């Protein structure tokens, strides 16, 4: 059996937004445009503005049992991706290969009929989602128990409160058992307690070894449910990595839309110390361990630097570096990407890099960040000095004060203190 559950190759989906803005195409308008083409003897060229690539050259693979979160702002192409994966719409380019049955849950209560009773709707909705009659019958009691609507089973759902409606709908969907499950934002409904229950059920589904693709704006849900995160931006896949990193990336990119909002800093116009400019650092920001922007940190609190670099021409490969300088004592620590990671072969611009400063060994004080990009022969593509500042405060994350000690850095070493001599 193949290890791969979902393989997406160069997926592209194009929409014509020009024709979408017209209410509906009518026979008359089709006839008229057909006549125009006939008269002009050539097809009317669509201008680039009328075309929207909701997905553009997206490729990734998902293994069986992986739970992958897909994040991105509205219009990033998340829903389009799910629609292609759920076979609701065909891709314009590329292809999707699926090993296993797919169940899609793009909406809670798809096909619910308001006139039908809860009981009837369980059967109808189950069948629409792809369950067999026997399967629904087997799970019927379980579905009813999960939905907590036993008393209203024979009431038309139009008389349900919206909460009951959503609970019943989710209960049916939660009992779907395909190998690959595609889920869109359905957790954004219901009260907090029911959301918790849904998240729990999703987690259980994931533990059963099913492959789950999960789209949500709920970054904490993605962090807790998913191992892996994929971020889409304007139809492009811009990040594919651990769920935590993807969420951080998402937070960074949503904030960076607003130019005035610190602490993401635009450094494209920052004076350069050196560099050919083949790749150029355009944005820098610092977040704490929770993915939130911060400019001051406690002792040993990990921090993360995010860097965005633009390239006019694509360099063959790049390697980032960072130096942290104390404003009073000069350079304290530096780190090179190629110590940890091979040089990065960029396939397009921009390049997103991040480095986790952990362990954070800095003592209280003010620090600045200097960044740069190497080319393959250690030549400088870019070098910006002291682009960001941050503060290390004199206390631990617990709030306990950090009393003064000597040394430019401080590290938590392992101590062993006892009365007996080492055994």
């Amino acid at each position, binding site marked *: *059996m*193949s290890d791969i559950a979902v393989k997406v190759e160069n997926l592209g989906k194009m*929409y014509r937004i020009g024709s979408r803005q017209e209410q*509906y*195409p*009518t*026979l*008359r308008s*089709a006839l008229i445009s057909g006549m125009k083409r006939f008269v002009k003897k050539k097809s009317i060229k669509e201008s680039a503005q009328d075309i929207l690539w909701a997905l553009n050259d997206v490729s990734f693979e998902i293994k*069986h*049992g992986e739970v992958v979160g897909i994040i991105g702002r509205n219009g990033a192409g998340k829903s389009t991706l799910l*629609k*292609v*994966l*759920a*076979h*609701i*719409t*065909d*891709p*314009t*380019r*590329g*292809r*999707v*290969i*699926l*090993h*296993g*049955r*797919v169940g*899609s849950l*793009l*909406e809670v209560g*798809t*096909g619910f*009929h308001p*006139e*039908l009773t809860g009981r*009837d709707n369980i*059967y*109808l909705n189950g*069948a*629409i*989602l*792809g369950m*067999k*009659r026997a399967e629904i019958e087997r799970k019927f009691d379980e579905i009813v128990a999960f939905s907590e609507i036993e008393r209203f089973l024979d009431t*038309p759902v139009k008389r349900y409160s919206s909460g009951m409606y959503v609970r019943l709908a989710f209960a049916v969907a939660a009992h779907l058992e395909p*190998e690959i499950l595609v889920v869109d934002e359905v957790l954004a409904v219901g009260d907090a307690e029911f959301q918790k229950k849904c998240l729990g059920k999703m987690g259980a589904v994931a*533990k*059963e*070894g*099913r492959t789950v693709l999960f789209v949500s704006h709920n970054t904490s849900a993605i962090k807790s449910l998913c191992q892996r995160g994929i971020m889409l931006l304007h139809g492009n896949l811009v990040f594919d990595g651990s769920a935590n990193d993807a969420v951080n990336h998402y937070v960074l990119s949503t904030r960076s839309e607003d130019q005035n909002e610190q602490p993401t800093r635009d450094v494209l116009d920052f004076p350069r110390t050196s560099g050919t400019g083949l790749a150029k650092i355009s944005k820098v920001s610092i977040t704490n361990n929770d993915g939130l922007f911060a400019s001051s940190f406690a002792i040993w609190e990990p921090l993360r630097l995010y860097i965005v670099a633009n390239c006019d021409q694509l360099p063959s490969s790049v390697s980032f570096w960072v130096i942290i300088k104390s404003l009073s004592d000069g350079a304290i620590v530096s780190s090179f990407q190629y110590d940890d990671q091979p040089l990065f072969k960029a396939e397009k611009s921009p390049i997103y890099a991040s480095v986790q400063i952990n362990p954070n060994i800095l003592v209280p004080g003010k620090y600045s960040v200097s960044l740069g990009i190497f080319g393959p022969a250690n030549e400088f593509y870019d070098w910006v000095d002291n682009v960001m500042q941050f503060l290390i405060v004199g206390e631990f994350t617990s709030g306990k004060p950090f009393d003064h000690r000597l040394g430019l850095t401080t590290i938590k070493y392992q101590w062993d203190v006892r009365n007996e001599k080492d055994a």
Partner: protein
Amino acid sequence: MTYFMNSINPKTPLPVTIYEPSNGWLSLHLRELWDYRELLVFLTWRDIKVRYAQAALGAAWAILQPLLTMVIFSVIFGRLANLPSDGIPYPVFSYVALLPWQLFAGALQRAGTSLVGNSNLLTKVYFPRLIIPISAVAAGLVDFLIAFIVLVGMMAFYNIKLTWAILVLPFLILLTLLTALAVGIWLSALNVQYRDVQHMIPFLIQAWMYASPVAYSVGLVPTGIWRIVYGLNPMVGVIQGFRWALLGAAPPDELMVVSILIVSVLLLSGLYYFKRMERTFADVV
């Protein structure tokens, strides 16, 4: 991966599916339609169950509709216009025609607008889209059967003897449904793209009724070229067939064979057109 092995037997080969840009004429994938037969049953059942929901008279409407139409026809065409009815009492003459006609008209009306009416399903889940117009057509059968009970009563009342010709009835019903389906899938797919279609359907049905011998006898149509054109309408053969099978009137003529051919062509071309358009339904609807 270990927990994965516990829940899904790794020896079961998983089905592999590939989604690619659709191009050209695909096969009809009728096999897939068969796999989804349970959904077809559920959607048909939904249509039937919902139709008379919150109606005080409920399923009685299935009888009242043809019955009231029959009364109106009997007064206007039978009494006032005094149309000939091949020696059969006019009420039963028109009622026996109204049964297949209303089955056909209802099926066509529902099928034509079925895709747009179920757009929430089209944009949210995958299943073979053909299920929607097929279930819309099939949902009319229950009404038909209920209304048929009244016919049995009328035949007993007018003391009409049954003949062996009644055995062709299932075939005639099938032809009615297939005709409705053939036109219905064309219209439903066109309606996704061009909403003009849904405004056109009532007129189409109305014109089609006057082009079928529901209220009058085929004998009224003058012979010649127009009689041949008239005979190409499959519903002419169906209604003649109903009167022949149940009331012992003259059997339908050989033009019915041609009309069956026309239905086949319409159905097959409709299936292909539908298949070709179905991948864009979710984007356009």
